[in-house]
């Protein structure tokens, strides 16, 4: 996946929705029929089991942010939309990845992993499974770093985000 550079083309929307069947289809259907592009999407329950939270990264080349937010807001099951400007959000993403790791290259790999702050999840005969949590840009960089080793399988969650805390609050 070609993840966004942190420029103004991509905005993150944190959308609280009612935890009801079909709600994800409503959101996805809205994006599809209005021609809005989703760069990434993460969905999970919140601490209140009546609601789920979607973190949607929207490609603003496809539509103005204002329209995306207003159309989303018209969905009856959408309870709240928080728009996180690039720079005002804490964003995290999880990647798990299996890479080629012949015994003679493992030290090198683990050194890179330690430097990035990742973890070894599993070790096989000639492969290792690693995980890394971080801002999407760091995940991108680490993914590029791993490529020369040979990526066997890779899975990213898409980003989740919350607003930066206000120092005065």
């Amino acid at each position, binding site marked *: 996946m070609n993840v966004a550079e942190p420029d103004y083309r991509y905005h993150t929307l944190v959308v609280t*929705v009612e935890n009801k069947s079909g709600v994800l289809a409503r959101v996805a*259907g809205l994006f599809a029929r209005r021609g809005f592009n989703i760069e990434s999407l993460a969905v999970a329950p919140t601490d209140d089991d009546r609601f789920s939270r979607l973190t949607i990264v929207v490609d603003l080349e496809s539509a103005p942010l204002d329209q995306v937010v207003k159309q989303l807001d018209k969905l009856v*099951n959408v309870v709240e939309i928080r728009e996180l400007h690039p720079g005002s959000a804490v964003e995290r993403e999880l990647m798990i990845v299996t890479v080629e790791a012949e015994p003679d290259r493992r030290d090198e790999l683990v050194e890179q992993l330690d430097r990035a702050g990742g973890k070894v999840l599993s070790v096989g005969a000639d492969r290792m499974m690693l995980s890394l949590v971080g801002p999407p840009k760091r995940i991108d960089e680490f993914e590029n770093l791993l490529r020369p080793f040979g990526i066997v399988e890779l899975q990213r969650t898409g980003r989740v985000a919350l607003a930066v805390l206000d120092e005065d609050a």
Partner: protein
Amino acid sequence: MTTTPMDGGQALIRALENEGVDLLFGLPGGAILPVYDPLIDSSIRHVLVRHEQGAGHMASGYAHATGRPGVLMVTSGPGATNAVTALCDAHLDSVPMVCITGQVPVGAIGTDAFQECDTTGITMSVTKHNFLVTEAQDIPRVVKEAFHIATTGRPGPVLVDIPKDIVDPGNPASAMEWSDDIEMDLPGYNPDTGVDKADIAAAADLIRSAERPVLYVGGGILKARAAEALRQLAELTGIHVVTTLMARGAFPDSHDLCLGMPGMHGNFTAVTAMQEADLLVALGARFDDRVTGRLDGFAPDARIVHVDIDSAELGKVRRADVAIRGDCRVAIEALVAELQADGLGDADRVAWRSRVSGWQERFPLVYEAWVPGQALKPQYVIERLRDLSPDDTIVASGVGQHQMWASQYWNFDHPYTWINSGGLGTMGYAIPAAIGAKAGMPDRMVWAIDGDGCFQMTAQELVTATVEGFPIKVALLNNSYLGMVRQWQEMFYDERYSEVFLSKDVPDYKMWAQSMGCEAMRVDDPDEIDAAITKANEIDDRPVVIDFRVMAEEKVYPMVPSGATNSDLVVPPLQADQPR
């Protein structure tokens, strides 16, 4: 709080009664069958249609005419899919409707059961909202929520899908306890209708300083019951009004300030006044492509005040200088109060008024005179219909040339007298919509103005009209063609007519209408028009169909060609030499 045990089917009917439903348009089938049993004991009158699309358009016509939500009830699978066109139509024209659909039992959902379809999935994008109810106990709450959503904010159709087991008294899943204390649970739905005072003040300032202002009025005025407020605003400020296809009747055509319909087939003055304006005050209008023409050339010098209850319409198509989210009536009344309190300004509009009246003199709606040997002039038929029918006649129309002529040549002096399919452009809308209007307003005369292509799509509902006792009248402008497509092929495809000729002789509309229980006439001669209309207007115990044989060559003018700007409006040949 006392509760009463009942089954889900009884609860559904009771919930509809609680919402004040007096009429239900529908057609039973397997999955919805259990609900039709308690209906027998209900105060609600059911109108048995001949096709579910008809039920949907009837509900729409009823809602347009009465302002109350139209309700239809159909079965699962094909019953639901047949209603989809009508739902989409209502969605695009913001018509408040509630559609109850039967569904296969909860346990059978997802198994490709007989007459199963994913109704909520299919209708997700053509409804304002929809529900799949899986517990009988939830039925009263969901029905209440459905009517609330359909009728508040920007109105629209809401669908409630009801699996058979929760309404079938033979199934334990249908047991529920009715309570009159029904609380809605809609945490994400807040149809706020208030307006921001600062926005109103900013809009008033733009109005005060505008030298060439136009009130651009859309269907939202009618939805907001704001016709009277609009009249106050127009008369207070002396600003001209254009009424879009969805807003015909919202401002009286006979009023001095009314310029009529703008858009692709709008009259020259309405189109040109918008195009030359320095301020457009858009009230419940959505800058539809049929109004704006090519967008980058639309009203290039105009600043925009845009009032809409749906904030997503603000800035969707054209950036507004002042965007006001709110109910049109509330906003207009606030604007009137603001202008009365702080003055109307002193902008000089003398030159503008004289330009407007000059356009009106040079470019009235015209058509070439009838010549012996020709078939009837469709415009003349509509003029006679207009002049021979009561002032408050409700007119429903199909889609195509006849729709545009009806909008142009009728004189709409009252709100809620014009019912048509504007957004979706649904052929066949006229007859069922007219039936719905007549059902809701039985004391009013209702004419459907239809084309022969449209007529053949939904004519079977005339059986419904006869059997159920809705004496509507149908003026069939029969030119043997799909006339609007024929017009485009003549003008833009070198007169290469592809699949637009229907038939001169088949069907025999008079015999067909008679077979459906209607009084039927055929008119070929201009001298017979008045007598036929007069006779039709005297009949009130059955539907009437008049087959008017009209000219196929007649075109709708003026016309903004597709892709052109409104400045390139094509006027009828009779006016081609007039200086603009």
